[in-house]
């Protein structure tokens, strides 16, 4: 635990600029959205919208603006609107991002901003894809604690270091930004994909878990970790900043260490 903190001052001088000065500027953007509705046409098509947006607006706000003010049929998933639920992974300017975490002002607004569904999963409508294959892979790695010992009456003990060992991969929100950015996954959709490996990693390196060997065996599959070609798209796409490729490397090494 941290040491007790000294009481902060009752009153301090605030620098004049604190709290942000001035009005937040507005700006114009063109949002180019990939539309697809099989009830209307089998073809997907680009659609442009000119919008006026504010300083702190995110791509999600722009999509909402279209849906709420221009065309209600535009469909996309979203819920929390601040990057913790994993609903709205999509391809923004060619890269997988969460729409609710991508500020418009951080993008090049002089060109159209392209928004399209994530790759490699079947598109169901506009930006909505079928997530079932993704969750299928997740379920296959046995993503839950398996402990063969006796249930203790109190909590199981775990040292701070042991807890730290798998901290990074506990952050996953199952948004699929990683898996759908992986060139290997795009090819045939059979590869387990980084998200499943991340969630296996979370348990393999949890000192309380006893089923690491089984998970390593699962990932030693021909569609398992060995298909990873270290392209790092996953690490760059992950909105939670998880070092995905690193986690995959650690799993590979664990399998090797076990077999050799």
């Amino acid at each position, binding site marked *: 635990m941290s040491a007790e903190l000294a009481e902060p001052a009752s009153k301090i001088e605030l620098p004049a600029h604190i709290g942000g000065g001035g009005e937040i500027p507005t700006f114009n953007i063109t949002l180019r959205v990939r539309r697809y509705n099989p009830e209307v046409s089998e073809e997907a098509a680009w659609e442009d919208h000119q919008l006026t947006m504010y300083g702190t607006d995110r791509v999600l706000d722009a999509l909402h603006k279209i849906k709420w003010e221009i065309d209600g049929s535009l469909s996309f998933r979203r819920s929390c609107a601040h990057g913790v639920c994993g609903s709205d992974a999509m391809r923004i300017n060619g890269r997988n991002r969460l729409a609710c975490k991508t500020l418009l002002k951080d993008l090049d607004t002089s060109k159209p901003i392209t928004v399209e569904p994530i790759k490699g999963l079947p598109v*169901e409508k506009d930006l909505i894809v*079928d997530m079932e*294959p993704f969750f299928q892979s997740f379920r296959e790695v046995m993503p839950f604690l398996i402990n063969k010992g006796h249930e203790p009456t109190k909590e199981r003990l775990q040292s701070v270091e042991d807890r730290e060992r798998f901290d990074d991969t506990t952050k996953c929100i199952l948004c699929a930004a990683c898996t759908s950015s992986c060139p290997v996954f795009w090819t045939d959709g*059979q590869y387990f994909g980084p998200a499943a490996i991340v969630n296996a990693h979370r348990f393999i390196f949890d000192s309380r878990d006893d089923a690491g060997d089984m998970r390593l065996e699962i990932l*030693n*599959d021909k*569609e398992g970790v*060995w*298909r990873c070609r270290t392209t790092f798209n996953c690490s760059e796409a992950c909105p939670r900043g998880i070092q995905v490729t690193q986690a995959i490397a650690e799993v590979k090494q664990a399998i090797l260490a076990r077999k050799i």
Partner: protein
Amino acid sequence: MSTDIQSPRSGKIGSGKIAPQYRRGTGSKGNFEMLAWLFMRLSGVVLVVLIFGHLFVNLMVGEGIHGIDFGFVAGKWADPFWQFWDLAMLWLAMLHGTNGVRTIINDYAEKDATRLWLKVVLYAATVVIVVLGTLVIFTFNPCPVVNGVQLPGGFCPAP
């Protein structure tokens, strides 16, 4: 009007099923993919030495490519060291490359049949090349007598 359904939806929408089929079996047995992966790295490291040495000797030393002719090759292979070098290079590079191309086929060939045929062709080519190459290196006679004429080559014993 009403039908009883027992299990929840799994990747199908109404009637039009659009989920990709998960053909991933119950998990392939054995460690083939792991060994292949490991082999790629190990052979890679060795190949760096072999290939760079090969290129250096063949293309950089002396007259470079202009120096290469029958005599040059014959000269090299008269020495068991280079024989072994080239043999190792041949095998490792071919296996490494074949396995690499195998992964690529697995990645991009969509249909099982296509996949199979491409791999048959690949393996056949590999076998032919490896066997041929090996034979050439081992049965090579640096001092052939063509039409009763001894070919030049300083390293050949006097007839």
